[in-house]
């Protein structure tokens, strides 16, 4: 009896694993951007990089649109996209940019912002990359744009370029 139970257990275990694998195969691209769009972001609370304050999802409801940008000083493509963020912040009033500093050191991040400009209305820190997971981030740079209802309307994987920039402008018109 005990032996049969063991066999049953092992077989179900193996079948479970294999069926998950089969399902995973059918899912095209785990990290495709489209299945995030339309989802609402969950409530969060992120600590500030600069001081001991926090930002939460409630504050974002006051913005028409928010772009959440995940960046780090050690990430070369982040430097490339940074000028678009600066321009976006300078030229548009209806979008605010929230920066999430990903797996970085405070001093390096502050130097980064000193050197390249600070387009962020708030810079949050995520030193071990745990909080970013909630936003479906797996590498940086990545950005998501949310509307007033905190619904994700666009996700950009990789550095923002001229084309993305123009699309953002269209979206927030």
């Amino acid at each position, binding site marked *: 009896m005990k032996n049969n139970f063991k*066999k049953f257990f*092992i*077989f179900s275990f*193996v079948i479970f*694993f*294999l069926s*998950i*694998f*089969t*399902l*995973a*195969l*059918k*899912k*095209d*691209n*785990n*990290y495709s951007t489209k*299945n995030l769009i339309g989802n609402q972001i969950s409530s969060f609370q992120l600590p500030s990089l600069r001081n001991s304050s926090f930002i939460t999802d409630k504050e974002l409801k006051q913005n028409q649109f928010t772009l959440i940008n995940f960046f780090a*000083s*050690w990430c*070369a493509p982040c*430097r*490339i996209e940074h*000028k678009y963020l600066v321009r976006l912040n300078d030229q548009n009033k209806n979008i605010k940019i929230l920066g999430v500093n990903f797996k970085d*050191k405070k001093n*390096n991040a502050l*130097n*980064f912002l000193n*050197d390249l400009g600070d387009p962020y209305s708030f810079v949050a820190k995520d030193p*071990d*990359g*745990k909080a970013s*997971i909630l936003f*479906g*981030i*797996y590498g940086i740079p990545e950005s998501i744009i949310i509307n007033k209802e905190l619904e994700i309307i666009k996700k950009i994987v990789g550095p923002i370029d001229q084309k993305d920039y123009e699309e953002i402008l269209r979206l927030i018109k």
Partner: protein
Amino acid sequence: MLSNIGSILVFFILSLSLLIIYYSYVETQTTRTTIKKNIYNLSLFQVTFTILSFFTLILGFIFSDFSIINVYENSHTTKPLFYKIAGTWGNHEGSLLLWINILVVFSYLFLIFNHKHEKNFRLYTLIFQNFLILGFVIFLLFNSNPFSKIYPEPLEGLGLNPILQDPALAIHPPLLYIGFVGCSIYFSAAIASLLSEYSGKQFALSIKSWVQISWVFQTLGITIGSIWAYYELGWGGFWFWDPVENASLLPWFAITALMHSIMVLEKRNTLYEWVIILCLVTFILSVTGTFLVRSGILNSVHTFANDPSRGLFILIFLSLMIFTSILIFFKKHKKEDYNFNSNSKETFILANNWFMVFFLATVLIGTLYPIFLDVLTNEKVSVGPPFYNIVIIPLVIPFLLLMAIGPQFNWINSKKEKLYKTLYVFFGACLINLFLFYFFENYGLYSNLILITAIFLILHSIFDAKKSINNKKKFIFPRIISHLGFGLLVFFIGINHQYSVEVDFNLKVGEIKKFNNYEIFFKNIKVQQNKNYKSVIGSFKITDLEKENINYLNPEIRIYTNPETLTYEAAIKSKVNSDLYLTMSNLPRSDFYNIKFQNKPFMIWIWISAIMIALGGFVQLIIKKNEE
């Protein structure tokens, strides 16, 4: 032309597998005690054709025969010869052919080197190994044929991903494949052992060398991969807990457990059941790893251009393997009773196995959990270093202790007095740690415990080595080398982690940056045209103001043309006590370059320790060869 030869050769391999399976099965039914000559001949033909087919593909790459799709997609006429050859296994189809080569070569070698063992055991091993070969050859022919043709023949190829054009990466896959695919032979042998009831000590002897060979190659392969990540990816790290790195660790844990428990089977004729399970699990995990990497359900630096049909094939194959082995295992295994003394070597070996199983489970969960969660709830998570650090680091402490103490015990039963010496060594380790703690800056509790236990293992291994030289017991050397290597590895990783310096800043040509006790002078920049890329080389003078020594480093930005890609080559100066690591990247529309400077103590010793672990296994093979 080459593609036709290749396809015909692969077809021969397939037919020979079928013939070998048939004749071997017929042979198991006879009462003769030796294996008929024709099976040897068929195997010899099979191994010859397999190696020839691989050479055919290499020739295709060397002569840039773009009528073969595989060559067209992964090579280019301007590529240096070395990377043309390495391109053969730098892609999915070619590496699958290499995989089949290893299956066949191991199958042949196992057949001819194990002539002392029982006939039916050898024949069943051959049969199951050929089932594996058959499966992969079918996969190759119908899904991933490296010899497929393209018409009209393109004039130029698409090129190999520049990030793969690196000497370490050229040898990393073959080493890993020998390690992972080599496990196939004792997977087959384990099933054969159940079917032919050839168990116990004899079985252990028949697979021991093969376990050691594949263990050495796996260890080296993982180390070389890590070295590549350090030099090429330009982040200054060497282990990222990337899902694909994890996939390579899973079989390594299983095989390390197997390497230890097989000694118990050999010396004490017990643990047979567990050894069989480990034999089966090791190869199943290798194939699972291959599935995860090749099917594209994991995203990582290793992702091959992926195609779900590949994944499906490997998955079907994997399921067949798992169910066959479970069914045969349940049908044939016999219950064993263990009774070990708590103060015996076998108890400690079992403890090693428990740790290995724990590490294996941790990494397995960390790797698969995101996939499971995604499939079941659509939620996406990524499991990174924080998880592994929290779960694994505390367990490393007792693990290191047991690694030093365990080998002091004898088989069956030991006397207690030996442990007093161990206590002295432990105090010695604490003193050394106190010394480190005092002279450098302080560090946390975990770091303290890790360093103490690592030093304890190192000291103990050194004393053991001294003792064994006095007693002329050379057979314990391999163990000492590997355990010492592991102790040193943990020690140097600990120190490296504690005392690494990392800074990041922007600099213009001609400027000087000062920080801590370093001064970095950006002297100039020059552009150089190479065979298949253009490089922008910066030259930097780094002065250590405290020690007053000067180093020159030249990081590069490479612009590859085929395919067009930018890569950042780190400039690394490896010295005995530390590595200076410098990368530079350009900032668009500005004169500034972003510079990342790191000083990483004892980097080179991390590699040396890891290679030492593998060396232990290698020495064991040599000692065994000399004894025979």
